[in-house]
């Protein structure tokens, strides 16, 4: 019997000894940070994860398009049934969109931090490659913090990957500390990342992108709330570095519409478009990398009109935006849709032309036109999203930032500053026919005669039709531009074209034309006479140029005009569209809206954080 006790005792002892080993299980299904980041391929995947957050639905994938434009004065969200939300300043710290934005940005920061913590794990990997990735991660971290600081004020600075779920009480840093860190990160990155030509695309971070963003960050530092005027020089310096970079060879795209067509077509225009968020595909494969640019902020296209591509169009423009353009400024016709799409299956881009709005209220009901699905080349078009890349930095912006900074530094515009603004204005300016004067009505016309204009540049010739009253030609009106790029088919001329009127059974009718010229776009001396006047020009110019590119709210905040602009617009809309639901989108703005609320999830679980004023 004793033997059995011995046996049992032995079994027990052996089992005790082997227990520890038995209980040490290792995951086989997922990877562990401790055994990763060791090959270039692994670093590549890791780097991709930090970029990934740019296109996440909480940022530029969708919600950024809601949050940063519906909340400014160019347009508003047109779903009247959604009575509460950040877009109409009727929301609180429990808001999902705010939480999504905040979480996503910190998620991106953590991903960048993870890569930064691990990038040098394997020193065998080529230094240059690791530096490039380090630069990209520093820049992205800075960029995510830049969005945070603009919208939430001072936020916790996290410079290492999160490793504990217990020590999570992190206080806010000051706005200045956050900006200083952004500058530090981006300046370090500037030395590490390659030039844009070497990279060959606008999706990856290039020296130009870093420099341009440094100019933007510095301009923000110079404005509200820091108001550190010394930063204008820094802004100017970085912008100038982009302008003077002959290797990169940045230049304005000569055609304003072409910038956005290019973005829709998986092509790059590295001279103009310096940094873009990449979206891709049509979901006909295993990938899901589409975004919502053009779907949510373009003209509406019904689900059946698959050739043009479905667009649910959640956004309207304001009359203020409509009225912001001067005659001759063709950006207006490209930025505001004077057409609609049928729900029937028609050829891509076939439009029903719509006349000019007849009231201020009608302007408030129009759709933005900059983001057009008709130009997409990835077929078939996906009906729940688009592959259109979203621009984060254009060369135009660099020029205007430079002009703005120079104006501040020199207490008035420099010649270069004026020239750059004129360049931008001229690029969008018309060279077509604007007036046709009938000098002789002729006689005997029984039907409308044929009107022919002399040939325009590159075959871009105006077309029009004559109106006959009592056998006389009384007027000649230009045809509509059926592409919707401009309002009229006005042609492209360096000198006024001649008009030939023939047929129609009559004779003797004659007309002369007048055209727009690029030089019409140049600023007047009054506009350049003072620092204040020039700043006003820049402010309006940015409003027109970057509409629906979501820079406006940030601009208004740094200029310190955000509250005033919203209140004014609220009053204006109440006059034009009394009682309309969108009036409140502007009149609801109060001083607390200079910042968004820190989301509840953060406030309740991070005991060291303090809510923004007015949001408790």
């Amino acid at each position, binding site marked *: 019997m004793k033997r*059995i006790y011995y046996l049992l005792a032995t079994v027990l002892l052996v089992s005790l000894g082997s227990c520890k080993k038995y209980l040490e299980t290792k995951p086989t299904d997922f990877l562990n940070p401790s055994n990763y980041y060791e090959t270039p391929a692994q670093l590549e995947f890791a780097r*991709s994860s930090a970029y990934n957050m740019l296109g996440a639905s909480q940022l530029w994938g969708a919600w950024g398009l809601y949050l940063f434009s519906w909340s400014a004065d160019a347009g508003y969200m047109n779903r009247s049934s959604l009575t509460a939300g950040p877009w109409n300043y009727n929301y609180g710290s429990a808001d999902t969109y705010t939480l999504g934005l905040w979480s996503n940005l910190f998620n991106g920061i953590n991903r960048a931090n993870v890569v930064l913590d691990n990038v040098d794990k394997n020193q065998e990997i080529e230094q240059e490659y690791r530096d490039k990735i380090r630069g990209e991660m520093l820049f992205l971290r800075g960029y995510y913090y830049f969005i945070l600081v603009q919208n939430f004020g001072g936020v916790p600075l996290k410079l290492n990957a999160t490793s504990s779920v217990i020590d999570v009480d992190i206080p806010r840093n000051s706005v200045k500390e956050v900006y200083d860190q952004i500058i530090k990160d981006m300046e370090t990155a500037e030395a590490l990342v390659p030039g844009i030509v070497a990279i060959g695309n606008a999706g990856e971070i290039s020296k130009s992108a870093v420099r341009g963003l440094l100019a933007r960050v510095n301009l923000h530092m110079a404005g509200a709330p820091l108001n550190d005027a010394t930063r204008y020089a820094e802004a100017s310096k970085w912008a100038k570095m982009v302008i003077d970079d002959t290797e990169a060879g940045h230049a304005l795209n000569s055609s304003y519409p072409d910038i956005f067509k290019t973005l829709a077509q998986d092509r790059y225009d590295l001279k103009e478009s310096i940094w873009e968020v990449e979206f891709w*595909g049509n979901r006909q494969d295993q990938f899901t990398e589409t975004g919502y640019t053009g779907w949510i902020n373009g003209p509406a296209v019904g689900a059946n009109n698959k050739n043009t591509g479905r667009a649910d169009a959640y956004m309207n423009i304001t009359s203020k935006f409509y009225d912001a353009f001067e005659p001759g400024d063709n950006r207006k016709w490209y930025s505001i849709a004077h057409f609609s799409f049928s729900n029937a299956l028609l050829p891509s881009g076939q439009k029903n032309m719509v006349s000019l709005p007849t009231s201020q209220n009608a302007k408030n009901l129009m759709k933005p036109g900059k983001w057009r699905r008709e130009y997409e080349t990835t077929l078939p078009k996906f009906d*729940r999203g688009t592959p259109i890349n979203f621009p984060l930095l254009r060369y135009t912006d660099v020029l205007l930032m430079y002009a703005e900074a120079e104006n501040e530094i020199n207490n008035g515009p420099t010649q270069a500053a004026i020239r750059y603004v004129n360049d931008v204005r001229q690029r969008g300016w018309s060279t077509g026919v604007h007036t046709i004067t009938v000098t002789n009505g002729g006689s005997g016309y029984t039907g409308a005669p044929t009107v022919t204009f002399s040939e325009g540049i590159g075959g871009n010739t105006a077309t029009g039709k004559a109106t006959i009253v009592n056998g006389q030609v009384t007027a000649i009106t230009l045809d509509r531009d059926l592409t919707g790029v401009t309002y009229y088919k006005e042609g492209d001329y360096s000198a006024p074209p001649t008009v030939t009127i023939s047929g129609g059974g009559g004779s003797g009718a004659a007309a002369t034309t007048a055209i727009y010229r690029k030089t019409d776009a140049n600023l007047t001396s009054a506009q350049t006479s003072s620092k204040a006047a020039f700043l006003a020009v820049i402010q309006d110019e940015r409003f027109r140029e970057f509409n629906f590119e979501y820079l406006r709210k940030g601009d208004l905040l740094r200029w310190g005009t955000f509250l005033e602009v919203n209140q004014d617009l609220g009053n204006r809309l109440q006059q034009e569209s009394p009682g309309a639901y969108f009036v409140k989108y502007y009149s609801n703005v109060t001083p607390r809206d200079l910042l968004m609320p820190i989301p509840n999830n953060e406030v309740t679980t991070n005991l060291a954080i303090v809510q923004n004023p007015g949001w408790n």
Partner: protein
Amino acid sequence: MLKIYKSSKGRWQLPFGVAMLVFLVSFTPERALSQTKTIRGTVTESPTNIPLPGVSVRVKGTQTGTTTSANGNYTIMAKPTDVIVFTFLGLKTQEITVGTKTTINVALAGDATSLSEVVVIGYGTVAKPDLTGSVGVVPVDDMAKAPVGSFADALAGRVAGVKVNATDGQPGSSPNIVIRGAGSLTQSTSPLYVIDGFPVEDPDPEAINPEEIESMTILKDASSTAIYGSRGANGVILITTKRGKVGKPVVTVSSSLGFQSAPEPVELMSPYEFVKYQTELNPNVSTTLAYFGFDKTLGRQRTLEDYRSIEGVNFQDHVLRTGAQQIHNIALRGGTEQTRYSVSGSIFDQKGTIINTGLDRYNGRVNIDQTISNKIKAGVSGNYSGVTQWGQIINQGPLTTGNPTSMVFARTWMYRPVAPLLTDNLLTDLADDESTTSSDHRINPFIDLENQHQYNRTNILDGNAYVTFDITKDLQFKSNAGIRHKRIDQEYFFNSKTSQGSLTNPGNTNGINGRVRSYLDKSFSNENTLNYKKTINNDHTITALGLFAINSFNRTVNGYGGRLLPNENLGIDGLDEGVAFNPISSATVNRMASYAARLDYNYKSKYILTGTFRADGSSKFVDHWGYFPGAALAWNMHKEGFFAKAFPAVSTSKIRASYGSNGNNRVGDFATYPSLNQVLDGYAFNSSAPIGAIYVSAVGNPGLQWEKVNTMDLGYELGLFKDRITLEADLYRKSTENLLLNAILPPSTGFGSAVKNIGKLRNDGMEFTVNSVNISNRDFSWESNVNISFNKNKVMALTRGQQSLPTNATYVSQFNRPLYLAEIGKSAGMMIGYIWEGNYQYSDFDETSPGVYVLKPGVPTNGNARNVIQPGDIKYRDLDKDGTVDDSDITFIGRGTPIHTGGFANNFSYKGLSLNVFLQWSYGNDIYNANRLLLEGNSNGYALINQFASYANRWSPENQTNANYRTRGQGPIGKHSSRVVEDGSYLRLKTISLNYSIPTRFIKRAYLSNLSLNVAAQNLATWTNYSGMDPDVSARNNVLSPGYDYSSYPNSPTIAFGLKASF
């Protein structure tokens, strides 16, 4: 079935047997004789007095032994000092001292269901009077009378403290079984199952054949569950399957055929009411005007009145059907003293009451027990279960988008009953095209359901073996080892006629699609116990248990999907022709090693003490080991002399108390590790196909530990008139600390949540059970059981700083805001929203000019702008009196958990007839009837959807009711209110069963030993104020969002006719 009657008759005779034993023992002569003599006798079964063959008769402590002959007789040689032990499986063992006797006749009584019964507990059995913990014995015989495929469907109301509520009535949907209140908020609250000694954390109740269950006990308090340590916190359900008995082979065959009546259709608006509603909803829209176009047969334009005579389509008539079920069981059981065997098989087949839904199960089990020598016994058992569940899951939308038409029932109700001018045949049209918008695709619910190809096939293979070795007569070693392989194969194929695969559905980006996925779980368990039992001086009994066990669990998941499938006709086999998507391949493992000990001290069954301790080591935690102690004591005061004198009518009076600690380990196997996740979609650099991304998806919490549950239990058992009436009452407090909570992290960490040991939860409750033999005479008997349980939980703490844990509703997306709140100091699962106050009436308005109504200054708004509120709009209570109803007016509007639940069982028997009537109830719980959001007022103002008939009674200038708001009077969209919160209390005639055993004399010639016929009904009647189809519903998470009803599959009455024969 035979067994049922034996035990139920034998139940009240047991005290007699005990008395006889005491009598015999007390007459042992003082003169001790040492000569061996021959003892003869007959062993019979009490109370039938039928001779028992095959009874083991043994002289205690020696090798001498025999078995009784066919007529129950035996002969054995023994000394007067010897004790003879009579053993027969299933009957209570008797020990009789020989003394001067030469004839010893013994009547062995059954050992089930009385206070003297032997109760299966963790790693052993104990006589019920000696029990110190709170243990519920499930009346499996009664439960087996319910015409259902799974014990879980018959468990509700059977045992105090065990709350069972259905998710809904879909065949194969497992009900939630919660023992003494949910101990966890975000982790599983399912009890641990131990099936023939094999612990299973995620059992499939529907994979167990109820006929094979011999006994089922539920361990409730910590003293009884502490022996299961880290897995016992949610309670333990011990299931023992039937094993062979010594005797001739007995073949038992039973069959039953049943019908489940189609759920009572909900009354919907008639075509006339529907068209009338559309003219109010969208008077000038073409789809409405189409109803009034030129009608050729009438020769004029159709008018609203014309729709009065049109019948319309009611899709409920096509989607609902009479269900059918059949159950067939066959078993062969028997054995000799050396070998006992049990072989059984069953087929269960159920066609649901919604078309193309159902379940079938094939099951086979073999149990063999073998005596190898006097000291060594061994046994093996094997079980196979194959369960196939098919059809659309009714309470889940087929698509993830929150459109109103995605739920089957909602779609069935809302589908319009009549098309304009009757040009379309709504019944055969694939979709209601005129109603299709970018976010709403209304596919024909009938065609969609018919074309669903969804299969879940579960195959479970269990193998178990044990060996016992009697080291000494007091010490026994037992080793038990088992494996369990469970494989689930899921197969989904969506052709173009289903909403998921429809090519015209704008929400479907996958075209015709499908997927296959397999889960393979492999569990292993080995448990080794040493049992020691010693009685000293006949007064002190010590029982000790030592345990060493190891367990492991492996899961692998594999599968892939195919989208944009080109060849629809190939079905699931053409999956490889499309674009691959959603591939999955994953694996996980966890292991446990455990030591445990239990010590019982029993003084004359008067004072009983139990101490338990378990140490569990789990691979899930970095610090592997956790320690779980428990202690209990009981005092059988009726055994005190003074007590018996003072209260002669009291046959049992026992008080017991226990305290102990348990754990809950239900977290991911590798929750302590940070993990990296690789995804396909990283970033599309250079406008090329995206490269993948890898990121830290979970930060990991190396400090993770068990959830600790401390339970205090105070129990009292009372028996009157020789236990003819018994009462058992328990009071408990169950406190969960270190709650394993999927806690919110500050988003600034870069993560949304992590499992943390944080928060506290408390459950307080009371349980009462009364058993009584109301009438008992030769021909007629009536026995009753009533039990009632009260449980109340309270959230004591959450993640630091967090005051409440909200849970969103899952109705359409605009309602995706908190409906439930678990707030500190309150119960989990409370419903929140506005208090509904009917409608705004004319008296609330100033009529500024004829027909223009402006809300009076003092009257608060409902959240809409003042200028848009009109008479007949919905009205909510402005709690903070600030003039507008906004977030600050949200309050508690309902409780999802009941105040009490219970059951009332009655067994009547008259000669060969027996009747079982079982009622079950739930009281005090509310149900959020989300169906009414859509179908009684059209929450979002969708065009062309039908409504419940009740919405015909809505506010209009002619009918200034408060019952329903006017057309489009829903106020701000997406607000939850008490309007659709309903009292979910119910009393249900859960089971009624009538059985007739044909007298033996008629069946003998057919070599039958038993033949019985029965008819049984389930859910035959329900008394409730709930307006939905079925109040036994909780379609979402049962702890945080209980009592949610939206498009649920109703339980409906089943009636089954059965036949059972033994030969």
